[in-house]
């Protein structure tokens, strides 16, 4: 009789006691399929042990920095009272930022704050079988859930569209700060994303329960927001005269374009 999968996993882990281990080894000597399973498990464990850290996206720091500065400015204004005005009042920032740069950062951070914390999680197809088990309760639950998913998707869509509108307004007004080649590249990338969003939206409309279509629509929104946030971050870095910061963002944009 074959050892069960739990025992073989524990054998591969090296966590079996001596007596059990000897029994498994005796079996493995005569059973090619169990030997193959143990070899595969060990391969997976070895490869898992060799996984390396992933690099965070380049745009992550500028996004975070904007949110932090926004939070600090907000805290400073609250401390200073309601009539402290719109100028930068944090001594650490005074002189290094112009008012419009602060406004730009603040506006982008507001959009970021609106998007972070709000995630739409489409149901994976594997977790919701296409054919529900027989029974009125299960069908009713699945039907109610499908409606709830559609409602959530619509809410998520509206949320993302609002965020996109806000960022587009900033990016369009301030785009003249960018050199024409960078602006053209951004425009081209935006057009590609818009096309993908439009196709995903059509797919969702014709097949509302399709998880891949929902996922692809949400990913399209996220990609657009990411690109617009990069655009605003780039404009802001150029205005601050921070060439290193701008170069980091442009390099991230190029990576994404490849």
């Amino acid at each position, binding site marked *: 009789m074959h050892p069960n999968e739990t025992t073989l996993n524990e054998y591969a882990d090296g966590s079996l006691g001596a007596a059990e281990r000897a029994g498994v080894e005796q079996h493995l000597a005569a059973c090619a399929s169990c030997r193959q399973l143990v070899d595969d*498990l060990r*391969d*997976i464990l070895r490869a898992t042990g*060799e*996984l390396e850290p992933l690099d965070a996206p380049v745009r*992550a720091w500028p996004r975070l920095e904007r949110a932090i500065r926004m939070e*600090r400015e907000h805290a400073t204004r609250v401390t200073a009272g309601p009539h402290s005005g719109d100028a930068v009042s944090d001594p*650490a920032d005074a002189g290094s930022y112009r008012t419009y740069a602060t406004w730009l950062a603040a506006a982008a951070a507001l959009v970021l704050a609106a998007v972070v914390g709000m995630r739409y999680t489409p149901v994976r197809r594997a977790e919701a079988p296409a054919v529900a088990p027989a029974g009125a309760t299960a069908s009713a639950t699945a039907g109610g859930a499908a409606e709830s998913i559609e409602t959530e998707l619509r809410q998520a869509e509206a949320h993302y569209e609002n965020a996109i509108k806000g960022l587009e307004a900033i990016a369009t007004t301030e785009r003249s700060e960018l050199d024409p080649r960078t602006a053209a590249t951004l425009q081209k990338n935006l057009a590609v994303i818009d096309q993908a969003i439009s196709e995903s939206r059509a797919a969702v409309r014709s097949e509302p329960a399709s998880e891949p279509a929902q996922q692809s629509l949400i*990913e399209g929104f996220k990609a657009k927001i990411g690109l617009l946030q990069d655009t605003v971050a780039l404009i802001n870095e150029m205005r601050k005269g921070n060439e290193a910061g701008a170069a980091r963002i442009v390099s991230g944009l190029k990576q994404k374009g490849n």
Partner: protein
Amino acid sequence: MTVDLVASIQAGDVDAFEALYRQHSAKIYTLASRMAGSPEDGEDLLQEIFLQAYRKIGSFKGDSALGTWLYRLALNHCLDYVRSRRAKMNKLTDTLDAETSFEPAARRDTPIARMDLERAVERLPEGCREAFVLHDVEGFDHKEVADLLGIAEGTSKSQVFKARLKLRGFLGKR
């Protein structure tokens, strides 16, 4: 060094916070992406974790290394995310037997490529992915995984083993 860095961050020095971010962002992003099973959600979690760290840095008393404090904060945030997502999913799948099905890839006897494994981990179902990441990747033992995820130790084992068998299928190992 840590004391200086923390003091500077507490005084509002964003450059000091950037130094902290540069030092730890890869580790935190890796944990968040793998726990969430998606690089996009991992990026959102990274943002939230560091924003929270910025807000809470005043509560860092130096009882542990700053990196340990940050990792614990990140882990708790990821676990909250996983729990809330699971609760949301359970609403839908409560009455359905949602045993995940998948089509195993054709058998391959070549070494496992790192990116293939990353993608395969992303495809793991909720529940067994988190247990696998915490046990096989992050190195917690089953008792710790059970405590972190609020499950029994035996469940942690079965989830990790289930994840490995699914990875075997995804990676064409059977």
